[in-house]
């Protein structure tokens, strides 16, 4: 009996919603938006992937095509790491557009990741992104609010609510029934949009997805489904406490604007205010100062390198570095690379910690704003969040360091130690060694790592679900009919 009432109410909502011709218009607009987002997204994805693969291969060919030469020249020749887009970025571009795409990896120097799409965008950049995720995160909730504003308030206005409740239907049945009805309405958009996303994702993968990738997609579907449910419950609750449909509509639109448009920017402003970042100049100067303190290989009187030299001379029982049985210059360079990389990493991690504080601040805001919880989780699962990006940067730096040290090792081992005269040709080693350096490969973090980084968002999600559960229960006892 109880269950039947809920089903009836739910079915009623579904029917009334779709009787309205204007609703079909809205559905059509959403479908058009989804079609456009999918098409343009796919074209852009293909363009970027083609470019990225093309130049990654060209850079590799250039590297392998080098003739016999001094390994230190190859350390300076370096390599490129071009960031590849994750297949799920077709669904949620996340911060992709703001991330650099090309990183030049060379000896002695940690370069910035350049050429972000945002840096080459016009002022239109500020209007945001049109993606399937955006439709589900931003527009679908608004539609639900449009449709749900009258779910209870209309019944109250025309008196059916009184009839309904006097016939033995309980408040909780009304609230749950209306919410499920609205949810069913929402599913008619959620389902096709997610199917479209799934199709794009599989097409981008070009093969069977791994377990990790499948899990990502399933979790995305789950969180978006939960969020849709959350919006339905909010719409029905607001409608139930409002005297008229109009006040419910105004309140819901107001909330929607606050949560999706104003609060995210406000939390960003607050986060950067509380946790200020150093300027690039200050960052570079600090790195340089620390390197000089540790030992500056360019300074002829540097105590660190003087001590290094003395210890080598003593260990090998020789009078000058020219008598050492290996290439001394290579040895000094390896030491310099070690010091500068360690110092850079120390500062880079300090900077990452700062970014982390800012991001964690924004994540915590999800307890005030469930939209942020979904947004952060969605990006993280799609592999378009800060975690994926910082992994790319760190893996590229590890690659750079290994490359530089491999070249230093070749120099120490194969380059004669004697200084050459000013007109003598540079020493060279065989080009076969260039093949020993593997190409750069980015490895995405696993779902487990994603969750470790995003636990606050998951907690906030859970918090909102619980909160709504109790609100519905509380409301069922306290709501008035009039």
């Amino acid at each position, binding site marked *: 009996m109880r269950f039947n009432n809920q089903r009836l109410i739910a079915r009623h909502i579904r029917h009334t919603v779709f009787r309205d011709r204007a609703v079909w218009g809205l559905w059509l607009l959403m479908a058009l938006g989804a079609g456009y987002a999918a098409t343009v997204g796919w074209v*852009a994805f293909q363009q970027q992937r083609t470019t990225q693969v093309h130049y990654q291969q060209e850079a590799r060919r250039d590297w392998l095509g080098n003739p016999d030469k001094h390994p230190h020249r190859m350390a300076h020749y370096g390599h490129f790491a071009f960031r590849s887009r994750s297949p799920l970025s077709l669904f949620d571009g996340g911060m992709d557009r703001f991330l650099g795409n090309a990183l030049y990896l060379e000896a002695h120097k940690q370069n910035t990741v350049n050429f972000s799409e945002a840096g080459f965008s*016009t002022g239109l950049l500020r209007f945001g992104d049109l993606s399937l995720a955006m439709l589900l995160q931003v527009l679908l909730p608004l539609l639900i609010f449009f449709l749900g504003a009258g779910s209870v308030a209309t019944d109250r206005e025309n008196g059916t609510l009184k009839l309904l409740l006097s016939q033995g239907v309980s408040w909780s049945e009304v609230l749950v029934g209306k919410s499920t009805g609205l949810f069913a309405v929402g599913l008619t958009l959620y389902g096709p949009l997610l199917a479209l996303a799934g199709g794009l994702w599989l097409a981008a993968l070009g093969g069977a997805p791994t377990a990790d990738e499948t899990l990502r997609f399933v979790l995305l579907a789950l969180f978006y489904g939960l969020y849709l449910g959350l919006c339905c419950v909010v719409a029905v609750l607001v409608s139930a406490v409002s005297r008229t449909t109009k006040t419910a509509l105004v309140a819901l639109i107001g909330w929607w604007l606050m949560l999706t448009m104003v609060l995210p920017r406000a939390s960003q402003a607050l986060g950067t205010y509380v946790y200020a970042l150093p300027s690039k100049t*200050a960052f570079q100067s600090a790195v340089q100062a620390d390197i000089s303190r540790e030992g500056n290989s360019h300074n002829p009187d540097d105590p660190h390198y003087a001590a290094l030299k003395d210890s080598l001379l003593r260990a090998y029982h020789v009078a000058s570095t020219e008598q050492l049985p290996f290439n001394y210059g290579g040895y000094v360079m390896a030491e310099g690379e070690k010091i500068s990389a360690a110092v850079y990493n120390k500062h880079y991690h300090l900077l990452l910690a700062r970014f982390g504080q800012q*991001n964690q601040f924004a994540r915590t805001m999800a307890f005030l704003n469930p939209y942020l919880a979904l947004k952060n989780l969605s990006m993280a699962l799609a592999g378009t969040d800060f975690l994926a990006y910082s992994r790319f940067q760190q893996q590229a730096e590890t690659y750079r360091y290994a490359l530089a040290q491999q070249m230093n090792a070749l120099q120490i081992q194969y380059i004669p130690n004697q200084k050459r005269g000013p007109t003598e040709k540079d020493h060279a080693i065989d080009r076969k060694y260039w093949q020993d350096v593997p190409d750069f490969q980015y490895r995405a973090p696993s779902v487990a790592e994603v969750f470790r980084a995003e636990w606050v968002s998951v907690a906030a999600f859970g918090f909102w679900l619980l909160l709504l559960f109790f609100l519905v229960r509380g409301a069922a006892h306290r709501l008035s009919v009039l």
Partner: protein
Amino acid sequence: MLTLLFRSFIRSTGVKIGLGFLLTAGLVSLLVGRQFLDRQHRHHREVVAAQQADLRQLAEFNSKEMGLMLYYAPFALVNETLPLAGLSIGQRDVNPSIQRLTIRGLEGQKYDADLNNPSNLLLGNIDFSFVLIYLFPLLIIAFTYSVVSEERENGTWRVVAVQSRNLMGFIAQLFAVRLAVVLGLLVLLLGGGVAVLGLPLDAPFWLFAATAVLYVLGWFGICFWVASLHRPSSTNAVLLITTWLGLLVVVPAAVNQYLLTRYPLPEALATTVKQRRGYHEKWDMPQAPTVAKFYAHYPQFKHYPLPNTSFNWLWYYAMQQMGDDESARESGELRQKLYQREAASRQFGLWLPSVHAQLRLNDLARSGLGNQVRFLDETTRFHERLRLYFYPKIFEEYPVKAENWDQHFVETFADRSPIRVADFLLPPLLFALLLAGLGWLNFRRHLYHL
């Protein structure tokens, strides 16, 4: 009558809440702008101090060779940040306002990114332009969506219609009161901007204000037209919110996506890969042909002979120069594409008031893509000036100590590209007039349909 209307309008709690909210958001945006300007100025001061300290220290360590000194020496160019940028930050948070370059290959340094947190860039700023472009229309919608329709729904419209001798005038007054309140708020915030950001009251400022006013008028035009459709208030509300969504969320994002795919930039990666090859492969080639190409580029340096050593600075900088020369085509194409993107977005701006406002406010604040491209162009010229100044000194082996390094100040680029007033004011003015005219015609038709 007007004062009565004004009093009854301003007395409603909804109106007070709306005004209070927008005033708060506006003040926050001014503080955000202040913070942004302070940060820019701090970065400027830091780079001035760092340049002097770095040059002095480098000159000490590399006192023997001018060529080695200039291998390391960084010189900074700053993109001037106008106080107006505090109102419209544009892409100044994405793109670095400071370039630090050595005289080595330019293409490898020109596009170096700033240190910033992409999460912050993604969420965007609450600057004044956001408040104006996104939030002001909402206030206007909230104030006007039920202007005549509610009176009809409550049945008071019949009374008004019967008693008023000039019904159109009455409707105009209803809108005029709301317009006056909204413009009052706008003027207040701009006045606040003058105080908080220290905006000079110059021509760009007045043009900025006029563009903002016309944007507001455009939205009043939309609301006036919707009110004239003779629909119930709730339909008006949904129609207006949908228009807002279309103009601010969906269509500009769709246009941007279109522009990015219409003008893709493989040239960016092409430039950087080519540049590396162009420079590095010269190490494996004889010196003479490379230096010959260098002489062809700079005939004025022909009289510096190529030394007979396996390494020399003339050859080294000639190799560096080749990296730039051989990637010049891709680099030029990249620049061309950026201008195309900018021009295309302006075309769309003619039809979309939101896009028009954002692009034009960025123009005045010198914070858009146009400014960025001009800054990159100036970076190229700046780099060239440095090369032309230092190349002879390197080739002559001018003593490092003899150079006065303290006179190499940080330079500033002031973007003074011309501004055509008509481009700013005409499109929104026509838009507002068109909608107001259409609304007027509609109202006249339905005036006594009670």
